[in-house]
């Protein structure tokens, strides 16, 4: 496999920053999935697309607005009516989804080169993200594995909660370094570790 080049460049600085206690408030990471794919269903074909995603990835994507599912190596979630993100550590899932979703059912768009996946985890994850986005990150309002589309200033972001205190963020690759720097600044207050 060819080594991926990170858009974060020199802004990615491994190690602990501003950690005063024994543990950082948040851990920041770039997850570098092999495949990031957007799947869209034509109106009325949502169930067929959900079934196709299950057949290809094994993920049981729940129906309903913002519903999602995540395992250690793959994830899927709804981010708009009839539209879903499918993310796997395996490369080339787009070709398999294209085979499973014919043109009359929906569309498959590969975003692996267009998005950067960032993970924010730790006891202060909700707090740090709450400073950036105008949405509620508390567990009752943002359930486990659910997805959200929102933005920080003009940086459009798709967010999935992949753990009680863990969120995966998908941002445009061209904005990723700038956004990462903003994220680091927001995390300074609580101390952060880059991994």
């Amino acid at each position, binding site marked *: 496999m060819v080594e991926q080049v990170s858009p974060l460049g020199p802004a990615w600085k491994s190690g602990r920053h501003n950690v005063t206690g024994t543990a950082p408030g948040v851990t920041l990471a770039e997850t570098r999935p092999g495949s990031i794919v957007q799947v869209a269903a034509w*109106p009325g074909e*949502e169930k067929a697309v959900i079934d196709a995603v299950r057949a290809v990835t094994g993920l049981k994507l729940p*129906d*309903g*607005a*913002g519903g999602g599912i995540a395992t250690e190596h793959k994830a899927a979630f709804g*981010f*708009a*009516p009839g*539209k879903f993100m499918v993310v796997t550590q395996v490369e080339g899932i787009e070709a398999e989804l294209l085979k499973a979703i014919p043109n009359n059912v929906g569309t498959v768009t590969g975003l692996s080169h267009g998005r950067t996946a960032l993970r924010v985890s730790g006891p202060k994850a909700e707090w740090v993200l709450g400073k950036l986005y*105008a*949405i509620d990150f508390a567990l009752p*309002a943002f359930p486990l594995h659910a997805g*959200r*589309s*929102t*933005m920080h200033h003009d940086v*459009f972001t798709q967010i999935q909660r992949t753990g009680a205190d863990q969120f995966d963020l998908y941002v445009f690759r061209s904005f990723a370094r700038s956004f990462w720097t903003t994220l680091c600044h927001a995390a300074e207050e609580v101390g952060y570790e880059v991994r």
Partner: protein
Amino acid sequence: MLITCPYCGPRDVIEFTYQGDANRTRPDPASTDQAAWNVYTYDRVNTLGDHAEYWQHSGGCRSHLKLVRSTLTHAISSTAFVRDHGEKKSASRRKPGAAT
């Protein structure tokens, strides 16, 4: 001002883009009726109170919405997907907890 997107739930107005007055009827694209196009392009009812409007959740799910906003209070009294032709959709695809 909060707008409750039928998909995303209540969101700040900064995530939305105004797309115009929803009280107008667009003439047939093939029409050459100058007066009808003039009315469509320039005439506005300038409502005091509830006003039908198109908005897009451009900083969210990117759905096009038709809603009613009070020009007096900014209160939003109804929101629906344009793709449903302005009709309220069944609850099955709505986010739990989303206001009606």
